[in-house]
């Protein structure tokens, strides 16, 4: 596609449920990032993929959060046993390669609400 696509755009779930958030990066982009953003805050880094592997997952808050990118393109962020504190906008971004000079392209985010 023309840009980074995230689905769904909005997700409401009950506390304790499992959710999956999907990110379709720009075709050919090898780097993919997940961020979480609460109201009034900057985006908080969660995990960064280079190809299929997680190059840096230091931002995942706990073991309820997991992300995969099995074929090096689409990525899924998985949250188990959701809590109300997980409510936030989850942003995905991609960039062309490992080069540190490149910019990142962001999707419009998934707004997750845990009730």
């Amino acid at each position, binding site marked *: 596609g023309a840009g*980074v696509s995230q689905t769904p755009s909005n997700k409401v779930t009950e506390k304790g449920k499992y959710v999956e958030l999907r990110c379709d990066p720009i075709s050919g982009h090898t*780097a993919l*990032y997940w*961020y979480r*953003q609460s*109201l009034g*805050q*900057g*985006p*908080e*880094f969660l995990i*960064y993929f*280079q190809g299929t592997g997680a*190059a*840096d997952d230091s931002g995942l808050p706990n073991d309820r959060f997991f992300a995969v990118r099995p074929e090096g393109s689409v990525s899924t962020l998985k949250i188990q046993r959701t809590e109300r504190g997980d409510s936030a*906008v989850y*942003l995905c*971004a991609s*960039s062309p390669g*490992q*080069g*540190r*000079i490149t*910019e*990142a*392209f*962001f*999707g*419009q*985010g998934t707004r997750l609400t845990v009730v």
Partner: protein
Amino acid sequence: SQQGEEDPQALSIQEGENATMNCSYKTSINNLQWYRQNSGRGLVHLILIRSNEREKHSGRLRVTLDTSKKSSSLLITASRAADTASYFCAPRGSGNTGKLIFGQGTTLQVKP
């Protein structure tokens, strides 16, 4: 971590005025990027300045970088109501994994 801190946190100006936002960081960088975010959704890349550059222009945007002071500034000239948004800087270190770390941002309001 290689995180930028934006200043001021909030800025309110009249249309036509210039807006200046600042970014400070702590360690050496390879480049520094500025992003804009409207309505709390996706960020849009504005401009990238490399560590060996001191100033860069893009339309009404002017970015400066002072590596000796570990600071950058973003100037928006002749602001418009459509410039109302949050602005974030993202310094990229020479030794990191490639991830971008964002601060709290500067929220700019341009009044018509």
